[in-house]
């Protein structure tokens, strides 16, 4: 019996390792290609790992036109989106988690419903409205993009922060008030430190979603000097027949690194938070 069990587990482990290889291979292949010299890449027999690693493709990618422009644009757009959406969303999340008021249910349904709207269905009205207020003009277009990013950042941030706030035991808050703190004092000294990890996690997720966003940026940022990193990467090979695969993969690695770093950081917290309610709900 135990022997059969052990063999069974070995079998499952082997299957799991096969799944792991298949899933991770594209990521490995991206990194591996990015470090291979061009003649190795273009060889009809692929090299499974970079035997003569080179940083040339990274230099090429960084030296391509508009790389640094796009990094600055992405950082600007993402930074402002995160800052505005977290502040506004935190206020609304406090209202949702700590108060009862009429219209609350409508507000919640609205928040969940908005997150279900396909973004591609919104590009036309957003484009037309923004152009009406001159926000597609080159000087203001980054601001226009930030506005469109709010359409997904705000509902998500409100809903997630509300969840983090609800997880704080109200006894803590009440204890502070009994000890003579005002409601605001209790809020600043008890609630804020407790919700800080939630604020960080939510900010990181808004950061990642905005950094990865493609369609709004693609539609609104027609001028190359204004494009974000994802649009820069999507236009990498343009119309040329001979694709610079090494450069493309190096560019991909560069675009993925910020997300990778932040994602590894908060993944556990969010994955748990996201699923905790759905199981029993």
């Amino acid at each position, binding site marked *: 019996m135990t022997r059969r069990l052990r063999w069974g587990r070995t079998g499952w482990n082997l299957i799991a390792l096969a*799944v792991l290889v298949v899933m991770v291979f594209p990521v490995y292949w991206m990194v591996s290609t990015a470090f291979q010299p061009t003649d190795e890449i273009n060889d009809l027999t*692929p090299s499974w790992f970079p035997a003569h690693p080179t940083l040339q493709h990274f230099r090429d990618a960084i030296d391509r036109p508009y790389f640094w422009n796009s990094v600055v644009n992405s950082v600007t757009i993402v930074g402002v989106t995160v800052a505005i959406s977290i502040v506004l969303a935190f206020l609304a999340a406090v209202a949702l988690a700590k108060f*009862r008021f009429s219209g609350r249910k409508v507000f919640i349904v*609205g928040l969940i419903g908005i997150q279900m709207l396909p973004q591609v269905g919104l590009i*036309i009205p957003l484009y037309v409205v923004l152009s009406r207020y001159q926000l597609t003009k080159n000087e203001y277009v980054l601001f226009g993009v930030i506005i469109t990013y709010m359409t997904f950042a705000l509902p998500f941030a409100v809903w997630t922060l509300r969840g983090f706030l609800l997880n704080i035991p109200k006894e803590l808050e009440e204890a502070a008030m009994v000890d003579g703190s005002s409601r605001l004092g209790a809020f600043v000294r008890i609630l804020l430190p407790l919700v800080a990890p939630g604020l960080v996690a939510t900010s990181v997720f808004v950061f990642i979603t905005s950094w990865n966003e*493609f369609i709004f940026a693609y539609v609104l940022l027609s001028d190359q000097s204004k494009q974000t990193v994802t649009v820069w990467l999507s236009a990498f090979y343009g119309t040329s027949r001979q694709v610079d695969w090494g450069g493309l993969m190096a560019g991909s690695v560069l675009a993925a690194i910020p997300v990778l770093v932040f994602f590894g950081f908060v993944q556990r917290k969010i994955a748990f938070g996201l699923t905790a309610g759905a199981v*029993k*709900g």
Partner: protein
Amino acid sequence: MKRDAPVAIPYHAAAAAGAMSLPSRRRRRFPWAAYGLILPVVVAIGVILAYPIYQLVRLSFERYGLFELVRHSGHWIGLHNYGSVLHDSVFWDTVLRTVVFTIANVGLTIGLGTLIALLLVRISPIVRVLLTMGLVLVWSMPVVVAVQVFYWMTNFENGVLNYILTKLQLGDFINHDWYASTFSSLSMVTLLIVWGALPFVVVTVYAGLAQVPNELVEAARVDGAGPLRTFRDVTLPVLKPILLILTSLSIIWDFGVFAQPYLLIGSSHIDATNYLMGVYVYIKGYGNHDFGLGAAISLLMLVMVAAMSVFYVRQMVKAGDVE
């Protein structure tokens, strides 16, 4: 792009209920504070969403091309845009293709995701940690990056996919062009989408599996139930709510997908034979500068998605609200 936009699934309803029972004294004293707190978000959503959606409805009844875009006002033409969309066979072909595409993608995502989650339970801790780390790595890949990697792996000149398939003796795939036919290019898009969506599904279902009572599984086994029977009668009922939420989310995301088909198939191969709804809306409305027609298509698409999300939103409100 919605796949990597995490959607918050409500927390434990009981925790919510606990935090909600405030003393009635305060409830009566502070309602204005609540309205003050949500006001900024309500105003922001009104400006960035409600107004554009009102404009979307209006645009769909107007002729609105580049000329009108410069003049900032459209020309009322009634139901004309709807008439031309609904009489366009490309529209109906696209709807049908998108439905089939969505069913295939959602089926594969949920099916494979559940299988991998079940696998996670059965393997040694070290392998489990490795597989989880691999899944998180895949999860964190930006969509546009994933598209470029798949494009490189599947290109016909020296893509590694053709090489591997040929080496495995599955046929001669040297210089095989995956983007030459509709079915095969949409299959590549499916591969990309399922690959990217699996980590979220696996992690979520795996968390759900932790809720399955071990005693029940044991009891079923003692009573002589095989693994399939145990899964169907013990595990599945516990997983059902989570699978329903994941399925409706996936349907909504895959139905409106844009970046993956648009970028992977590429502008040189995109045409009426391989449109999905997202690509169709983009090309008809924005690409052809016919914003009125595009608005009509967008609205039809939003109505279809709204119909599909009614179930999901109800489920969420039930789980997340406390009233």
